[in-house]
């Protein structure tokens, strides 16, 4: 479908470089973990996880995100989606662990909320560079226990989410859901692999998206050939065994780039 016209209804500063944009169409049927293609007209179209069924939470990194940061309430952008496969929802009584690094908290926050609403017990490991960068701490805290880690130790454990994870009893969780920078996700992956907990883990990947709808092949990962945009972005830990995760990704031309 052609992009929908989305009008910005509200903008919230989450941290110096992260903002949430609320918009007008509401995707009632979205699966937490799904993404939209956000078209900043005249500039570019980029993938963004849905941080609510009517918001995206964006870190300013380059051209398109900078242009997005210039938009005001009442301005609009184009939206295609929601696309892809989200996180698997737990059933009532299950206990889940959410591991979010940086802006990875964006797609995980609606997931944690939906899991809570479904009757699961939700624990979160929330990591960021420093205290000011912690995203959606309040949303996670409203659901259950939150373990915080910061690189600089300005809040919680000084170090990485893995430093918290190591100290937890993974056997206590029915599901583990992970999203964050790839370096972080691959550390978590290795740790879960060691602890034989990959079966219950899901990871939300980032790759360069062109079509976003599973046709062009730009986002396929080795060696499964799975499409991050359509077969993912959320994959089970088992699907990622032996994959390129943490090793390399491909740029817009399809060239391999080391992580």
């Amino acid at each position, binding site marked *: *479908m*052609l992009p929908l016209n989305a009008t910005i209804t509200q903008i919230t500063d989450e941290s110096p470089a992260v903002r949430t944009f609320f918009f007008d169409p509401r995707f009632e049927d979205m699966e937490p973990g799904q993404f939209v293609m956000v078209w900043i007209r005249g500039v570019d179209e980029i993938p963004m996880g849905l941080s609510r069924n009517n918001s995206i939470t964006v870190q300013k990194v380059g051209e398109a995100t900078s242009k997005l940061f210039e938009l005001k309430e009442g301005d*609009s952008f*184009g939206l295609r989606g929601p696309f892809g496969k989200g996180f698997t929802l737990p059933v009532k009584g299950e206990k889940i662990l959410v591991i979010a690094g940086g802006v990875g908290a964006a797609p995980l926050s609606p997931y944690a909320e939906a899991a809570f609403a479904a009757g699961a017990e939700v624990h979160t490991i929330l990591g960021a560079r420093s205290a000011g960068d912690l995203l959606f701490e309040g949303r996670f805290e409203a659901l259950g226990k939150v373990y915080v880690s910061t690189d600089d130790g300005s809040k919680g454990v000084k170090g990485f989410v893995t430093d918290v994870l190591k100290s937890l009893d993974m056997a206590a969780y029915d599901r583990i859901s992970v999203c964050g920078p790839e370096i972080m996700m691959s550390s978590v992956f290795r740790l879960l692999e060691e602890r034989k907990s990959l079966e219950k883990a899901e990871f939300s990947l980032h790759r360069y998206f062109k079509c976003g709808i599973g046709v062009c*092949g730009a986002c396929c990962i080795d*060696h499964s050939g799975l499409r991050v945009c359509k077969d993912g972005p959320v994959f089970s830990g088992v699907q990622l065994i032996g994959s390129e995760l943490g090793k390399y990704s491909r740029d817009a031309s399809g060239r391999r780039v080391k992580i």
Partner: protein
Amino acid sequence: MYTLTGLKLKNPTILAAGVLGTTGASLCRVAREGGAGAVVTKSIGPTPKTGHHNPSMVRLDCGFLNAMGLPNPSYPSFLQELEFAKNNSPAPVVASIFGGNPSEFAEVAQGLLPAKPDAFELNVSCPHAEGYGAAIGSNPCLVEAVTAAVKDVVNVPVWVKLTPNVADITCIGNAAEAGGADAVVAINTLKGMAIDIESGYPVLGNRSGGLSGKAVKPVAVKCVYDLYTALEIPVIGVGGVSSWEDAVEMMMAGATAVQVGSAVYDRVDIFSEIGAGIEAFLERKGYSNINKIIGLAHEMV
């Protein structure tokens, strides 16, 4: 087993160029899980290109519009992908290549030869990449020269992919045949455009692009029909095939095999589905083999 320009295919369905063909692993997945009889890579050129800005592909009411802009890592970087595909694919792997002139085409072909592709497909037909593709593909002399240049340097079959954005596609098909092509592939996308009326912006990053999918099937069938009459070499039909019925229609128009591009949107295993559908059709109608339906429409008068 089907034979197409010497390649052995388990069914007459082929992954079209530029679709799920950027990585070796993806090509293998389409061959194995998807069930394709052969797979064609993304078109590879002499230098790395990141392609056009997004949006680079959108779905329309009827069909799809894309302007990828021939993103590719260039042949030196693509070698490892092609090698992976060749080593792991259960089906033949065809390298799609492009260039700005005959010698660039030859350079890219030679550059990929070490990976031993089963055939080359020459993309002289992309409607939205300045100076490449259709700029060559609408000029019969250039098409003949490009084909001959590649034929000169490779010892595997060479297919030439044609653009429908010409007054008479058979002229271009004849030129490819004259240049020594082993088969022609028809069609690439039709020039097209969509505009976002809320903003007035053209939807594609490149403003305009190429139309594919259901919308173009009747155009593709007509091109295949005309090429079948005009040429001696096989015609491979592509454009809007998304079911076994479409594949049969394309073959009755004269296609020896069909390629499927946009329809992987629906499901990756569309190839085995089409293959099985064709088999069941041949059986139900009592056709002893697939050759009975290739070009059948030409006999029905």
